[in-house]
């Protein structure tokens, strides 16, 4: 599940889990442990109280039984006839005795047990004969009445019988009645019963003592019928009215050896802690209970405190985790966002983590990486642009090369065709080739072989120039001497064509560091062209000292070049003018000007021309005196 979460909730949940789960565990453990301990101590306390109440009750009942026994043992009562044949005199004496005993008891209170007033609690003393007739009673009105006889049999076997608890519904007085068998003093036979009825309010007094029982604790007694026989702390008029059906009472009367219930619902349905004691003689159950709410009040308060403290702690933890999470996650998110931007090509992004931990290192190295990436990308872009340009140039060059190859092959085909045609005819013996024809064909062939050779040489020169493979043999040269040499070289040819060739220089000595042969080659190409095309007039070669440069010129009075052809002059295999066509002897290779341009440029110079149709053409080139 954690895998699917983002970093922040993952971090948050992890920290919260780590800190809050133990806290909750410890709190709950403490709470339950304390509750159990409290329960045990409360139950122990209740047991002490219950035991003390039971002891009171036992003591009280025992006292009554002793009184009954004492009465039954008196001489007068033991005079009763076992057959019930009591004389009026005996009865009268008995009545007198009982009354005197009763008044005696009333007069001299015996306070054998703590604060319980025993004497005042005797309500009635009665003596029965063996037939159940009341023969003496402290209440004279009752004498002669017949009492139920069912107890006698029990008395014969047990001697004493705890008759039980009763309540006068009119006066609301509560009583305990005890029967004690009477034996005849002579025969030892059962001859009657002493009936002792005492006020039982003392039971309420015993149970009403709520020392150590707080606000909700109480002790009460339940008889065998499940009715409460003491006052309830909460229910009015409970005595012999309130039926107590609780787990505790069931357990009490079941007589099992099991562990007694300690927490259960009381007669009001409230959860209580309680202990019980069964009084077998009376068949009573003495119960001491306290409401769980009160008993657990300290632990509840403890729990509430834990809740409050834990709640505060959890809030604090959440806040701290949130803050800590932000502190941890923010730089990571920052770097992540920055990396998104970088991925989109924004290399201006920087992250600023203001800590000195590993995240700071990460941020710093990320920034460095971005910077390097940015500059590398920029360089790559620049290089790409350059490469693209170079690619275009190469493409153009390649096209030019293809064009050039095509041009070369085209130019080579014509002399080859001439040679092949000549040789074919010469070699065909079926043809009648005259001597004159043979000689003409051979001459033409040789001329064209020369033309081919020249063309190939020029091509090689041009290729070397263009490939930068020509090394200039620079020397200090007087350009004026070059002019003279060129003029001399063309003197005869010029004379044949009836053209004046002359030179002009701005001074006698114009020195420059140049390759003499190459510059002469340029002049020869230019002057050679001029002679080809000029029918009459002049050709002038000149040089001018232009401080650190030398400006050279070849001017003719030829037909000039049309404006559209001016563009093509320095191109390869370009030939112009009618004269060139009509006279096969001056047919060139069309490469001379390309070579001249290359050579001038090798010297760091430039070449250009001015021409006017019908006036003449002026080729000019300028180059630096020294190597730059």
């Amino acid at each position: 599940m954690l895998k699917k979460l983002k970093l922040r909730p993952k971090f948050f949940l992890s920290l919260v889990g780590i800190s809050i789960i133990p806290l909750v565990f410890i709190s709950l453990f403490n709470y339950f442990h304390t509750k159990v301990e409290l329960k045990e101590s409360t139950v122990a306390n209740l047991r002490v109280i219950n035991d003390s109440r039971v002891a009171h009750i036992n003591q009280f009942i025992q006292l009554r039984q002793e009184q009954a026994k004492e009465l039954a043992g008196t001489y007068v009562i033991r005079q009763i006839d076992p057959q019930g044949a009591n004389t009026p005199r005996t009865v009268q004496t008995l009545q007198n005795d009982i009354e005197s005993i009763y008044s005696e008891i009333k007069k001299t209170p015996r306070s054998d047990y703590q604060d319980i007033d025993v004497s005042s609690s005797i309500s009635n003393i009665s003596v029965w004969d063996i037939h159940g007739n009341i023969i003496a009673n402290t209440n004279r009105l009752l004498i002669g009445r017949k009492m139920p006889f069912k107890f006698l049999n029990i008395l014969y076997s047990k001697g004493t019988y705890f008759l039980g608890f009763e309540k006068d519904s009119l006066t609301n007085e509560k009583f305990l009645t005890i029967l004690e068998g009477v034996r005849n003093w002579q025969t030892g036979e059962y001859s009657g019963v002493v009936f002792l009825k005492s006020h039982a309010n003392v039971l309420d007094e015993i149970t009403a003592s709520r020392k150590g029982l707080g606000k909700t604790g109480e002790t009460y007694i339940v008889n065998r019928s499940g009715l409460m026989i003491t006052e309830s702390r909460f229910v009015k008029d409970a005595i012999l009215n309130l039926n107590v059906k609780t787990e505790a009472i069931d357990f009490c009367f079941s007589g099992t050896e099991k562990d007694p219930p300690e927490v259960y619902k009381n007669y009001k349905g409230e959860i209580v802690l309680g202990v019980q004691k069964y009084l077998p003689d009376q068949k009573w159950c003495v119960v001491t209970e306290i409401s769980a709410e009160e008993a657990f009040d300290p632990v509840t308060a403890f729990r509430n405190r834990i809740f409050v403290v834990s709640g505060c702690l959890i809030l604090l933890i959440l806040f701290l985790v949130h803050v800590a999470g932000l502190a941890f996650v923010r730089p990571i998110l920052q770097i992540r966002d920055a990396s998104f931007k970088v991925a989109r090509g924004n290399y201006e992004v920087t992250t600023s983590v203001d800590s000195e931990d590993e995240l700071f290192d990460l941020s710093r190295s990320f920034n460095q990486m971005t910077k390097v990436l940015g500059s590398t990308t920029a360089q790559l872009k620049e290089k790409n642009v350059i490469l693209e340009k170079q690619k275009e140039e190469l493409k153009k060059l390649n096209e030019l090369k293809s064009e050039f190859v095509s041009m070369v092959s085209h130019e080579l085909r014509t002399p080859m065709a001439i040679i092949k045609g000549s040789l074919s005819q010469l070699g065909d013996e079926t043809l009648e080739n005259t001597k004159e024809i043979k000689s003409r064909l051979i001459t033409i062939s040789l001329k064209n072989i020369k033309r081919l050779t020249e063309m190939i040489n020029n091509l090689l020169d041009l290729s070397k120039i263009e490939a930068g493979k020509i090394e200039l043999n620079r020397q200090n040269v007087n350009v004026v001497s070059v002019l003279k040499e060129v003029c001399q070289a063309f003197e005869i040819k010029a004379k044949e064509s009836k053209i004046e060739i002359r030179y002009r220089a701005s001074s006698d000595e114009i020195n420059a560091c140049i390759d003499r042969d190459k510059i002469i080659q340029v002049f020869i190409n230019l002057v050679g062209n001029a002679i080809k095309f000029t029918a009459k007039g002049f050709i002038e070669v000149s040089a001018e000292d232009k401080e650190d440069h030398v400006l050279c010129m070849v001017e003719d009075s030829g037909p000039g070049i049309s404006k559209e052809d001016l563009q093509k002059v320095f191109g390869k295999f370009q030939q112009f003018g009618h004269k060139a066509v009509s006279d096969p002897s001056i047919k060139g290779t069309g490469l001379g000007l390309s070579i001249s341009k290359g050579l001038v440029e090798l010297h760091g110079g430039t070449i250009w021309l001015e021409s006017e149709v019908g006036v003449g053409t002026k080729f000019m080139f300028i180059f630096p005196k020294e190597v730059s």
Partner: protein
Amino acid sequence: MYKILIIEDDVDLATVLQMNLVSKGFDVFVAHDAIQGTASAHQKKPDLIILDINLPAGGGLSILNNVKASVNTKMIPIIILSGSDDEKLIHDVLHGGVEDYIKKPYDLEDLCTRINHILHIEK
């Protein structure tokens, strides 16, 4: 005797070709540029024209168009003789009504065979 007009700017080639064809028994005229060539085609009424494509003063194509456009000359068969490797050009001229296309350097026997074929000469 069949009349053949050679229109070729290279004087040497024109001369050699002329000598070749004369030796093969043709009556041969030579022109060196487009203007001369067109004029010769009209004046001499050759039986066949051998035409170079790269010509000064108008170029071979202008002659071709001119000859094929004129009622008097449009029936004259034309063989193109060229050093060009331009395939588009070759394609264009072959579809422009010329009879054949021969690349320089020509083979004399082959050239004669083609001329004979065009002129329906049986050897």
